[in-house]
């Protein structure tokens, strides 16, 4: 692989996972209470995908990374302050809802169109990355649909490792049942990898990277086109946080022996 990869990472914002989430009725779809006030982060799995992309691009001369994000412009803007110092990338922004209740098919159509519109993208060298699920819709389907629309028929889900072998083939480890990996070898780009956690720690903040990224991020945000996600055909019936408060029996002042005995009896029951 002498020419390097063109890596497109699909990933957007999700409410910071530690926030309290409560659904409220919305227009086209359910919404979250105080949705606009919730701080957001880059979706954790998309984050892993982005860091893996940057790592691979750094190792493979001639490579380039794009981050394609669909979300409300103002929130994307804020998100970029948190992400842009991490790794070098060029942003492609789409202005639209980032709700978990948007339709994966519509999102895939919008993302595929945006990717098709990237100037200078060489589809033969394309590695399409994303998360294996999102912390919002949490379905794990969008990246595959984008890949399919782009005509990429080598796809991998829940990837923890992607290695370019001598000769250019790509070895991939995907998570499967029971904490094991399925190993596959693909001839090379183009392919789709929807990442699990990968193996890289979150990169440190680099002010230089941030400064460099911001030069392209600001114009990208300024020209972010609207993405229409009408959710047509879907009827939302209920959306709720299940209230399953349990009556917790608190056992204190018992000895370790007594507690252990009770636990063992329970385990065997």
């Amino acid at each position, binding site marked *: 692989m002498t020419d390097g990869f063109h890596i497109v990472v699909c990933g957007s914002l999700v409410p910071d996972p530690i926030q309290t989430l409560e659904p409220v009725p919305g227009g086209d779809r359910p919404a979250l209470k105080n949705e606009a006030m919730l701080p957001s982060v880059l979706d954790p799995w998309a984050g892993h995908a982005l860091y893996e992309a940057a790592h691979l691009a750094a190792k493979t001369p001639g490579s380039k990374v794009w981050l394609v994000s669909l979300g409300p412009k103002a929130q994307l803007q804020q998100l970029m302050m948190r992400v842009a110092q991490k790794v070098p990338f060029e942003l492609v922004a789409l202005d639209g809802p980032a709700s978990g209740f948007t339709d994966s098919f519509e999102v895939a159509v919008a993302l595929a169109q945006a990717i098709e519109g990237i100037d200078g993208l060489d589809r033969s060298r394309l590695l399409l990355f994303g998360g294996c699920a999102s912390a919002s819709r949490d379905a794990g389907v969008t990246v595959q649909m984008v890949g399919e629309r782009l005509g990429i028929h080598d796809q991998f889900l829940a990837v923890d490792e992607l290695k370019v072998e001598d000769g250019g083939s790509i070895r991939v480890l995907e998570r499967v049942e029971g904490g094991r990996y399925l190993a596959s070898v693909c001839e090379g780009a183009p392919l789709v990898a929807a990442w699990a956690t990968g193996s890289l720690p979150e990169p440190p*903040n680099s002010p230089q990277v941030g400064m460099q990224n911001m030069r392209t991020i600001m114009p990208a945000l300024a020209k972010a086109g609207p993405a229409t996600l009408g959710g047509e055909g879907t009827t939302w019936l209920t959306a709720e946080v299940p209230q399953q408060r349990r009556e917790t029996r608190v056992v204190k002042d018992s000895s370790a022996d007594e507690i252990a005995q009770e636990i063992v009896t329970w385990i065997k029951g």
Partner: protein
Amino acid sequence: MHDNTVERQCLEVDIACVGFGPASGGFLTTLSRGLTEAQGEFESSAMPGLPPQVVCYERADDLGFGVSGVVTRATAIRETYPDLDSASIPMTAPVTSEKVVYLLDPIGASRRGLAVRFADAMLRGLRFVFRVRDEAFTLPFIPKFLHKDGGLVLGIGQFHQWVASQLMAEAQVQLWPGTPVAEPLIEDDAVVGVRLVDQGTDLKGEPDVGYLPGMDIKAALTVVADGPVGPIGRKLDEHFGLPEGHERRDWAVGMKLVVDLPEDCALEPGTVLHTMGYPEPEVFGFLYVNQPGLASLGIFVPSSLDSPVRASYRYLQHWMQHPYLWKHLKGGKLRSWGAKTLQESGRQGEPHLVGDGYARIGEGSGSTNILTNSGVDEAWATGAQLAEAVLELLKSKQPFTRDNLERTYVKRRRESTLDKESKVAAKARVGFRRGFVRGVIGTGLTGLTRGRLNAPGGLGTKHREIKTLAEHFKGRIPASEIERIEAEASASQRPLQDVYMDRVGWPAIPFDGELLVSHQDALLLGGKVQAPPGYADHVVFLDPAACAACETKPCIAICSGQALTLGGEDGVPLFDREKCIHCGACQWSCPAPRQPGHDAAAIALEAGAGGLHSAEN
């Protein structure tokens, strides 16, 4: 301290701003507009060919994670945004009503001096005359200096987010949250930039996976806006000292909740309540209604409360349950929680505002008006004044020297109304060093005479004179019992403040899982406290021997997140950064000066990422 032998990357910018808060909001907004209006007239010296490179580094993980329940006259903010529409900023409401309320102690556990007890007895005896209801006496009038007529109730987190989004849209300055700044770079008494903290380290700061030594950011001007306990401000003070006659010895920790009010609550948006007298006379409280059904409320635990058991969270829970407040709050739900330190020395704590290559703005620069109890608008104003000065210097192509900054920034600041007001207020809190009653009288005197008369007392008294446990609980808990409690606690690592509060008669908190939640649940449910990996512990014990010898360890009781506990090796407290909200109360509560006669404490809050993750504060 950083290892100077490590090779560090260096980035050159024109202006580096430390901390994103009201002061830097005012600074960056004014500067950003000036740069836009200049239409490319100014050129970066750091990166020729480009416009001036202005960066702002904020240690918290997001720009909206600041804490403050604010009621402000918003004079300076409105000068910047003349068309400010409060409806466009969540949690913002125009002030509609104000009350100052004296709370009696319905429990009988509060520590009240003779004068306070006398006043209580009088209010109770003449309750019909004074219209005492729900154990509370509403002041018939509010002195003018305390009024916030025409002002705004704000949620500072949301306000910051809004300001940041305006700045981002203008694209003249760069804002970088999650980027703590370790120290100023000082060369020949000039500040030449800042050093960011090392990343990819273990808890002790030793290199680990992904090690990246903190980068040196060289800047022609360093703007220090890191608040009351920020490490850059502190290190500048340590290097340059405070101006003659200035001191910073009055502090408070403000702890607050954002609460979903119960459905039947009648409080209107814009309602402002201030309380005093309970749970301890020295503890002031506030309740501001931000929007229908949503209020910010909390207490201030000041350094003048000379107790070694400054249990802010426990006090907050008792305060909320006071009948006067509980009638509004019962059935409410905790939405957010947080705490911060307030620098209450105001003008008396003003540091050197400028020097070669640096300028200081905001709360850390002594801008808070301690008479009117307002700091946000004042901080904003100092930022805006500095920005005007910077634009003037850029225009005339003059360097950011001490003289030039004095001539432009300090001059503007001195000529401003807010600065004159803060001068009037300079001695408003002096009386509190001698007790609550003298404090209140002193504040009244300062306010009514516009600073011509103040409570007696001056500098240097009461510095961290926290009583010992035996002294504090004299007549309430026998010394032998205190010894036993201490010995047992040391083994169990159990927080002691609750034990003492229980012992002196504060009732157990009836946890309801909604509003009355455990301290740890307040951190998790309300503050969403986080500590990202890859950074050194940011609370450091600089003089372990002093910590070991410290009998009272008030840092533990006042720790807003219970991040400090007993049980460390050699008697030094243990620090758990996953619970730390970077309020810095440990630092000013430390009774063990690093050197005799020196203000620097044995414990220090350094810069670190993480902490609160709520934008509703």
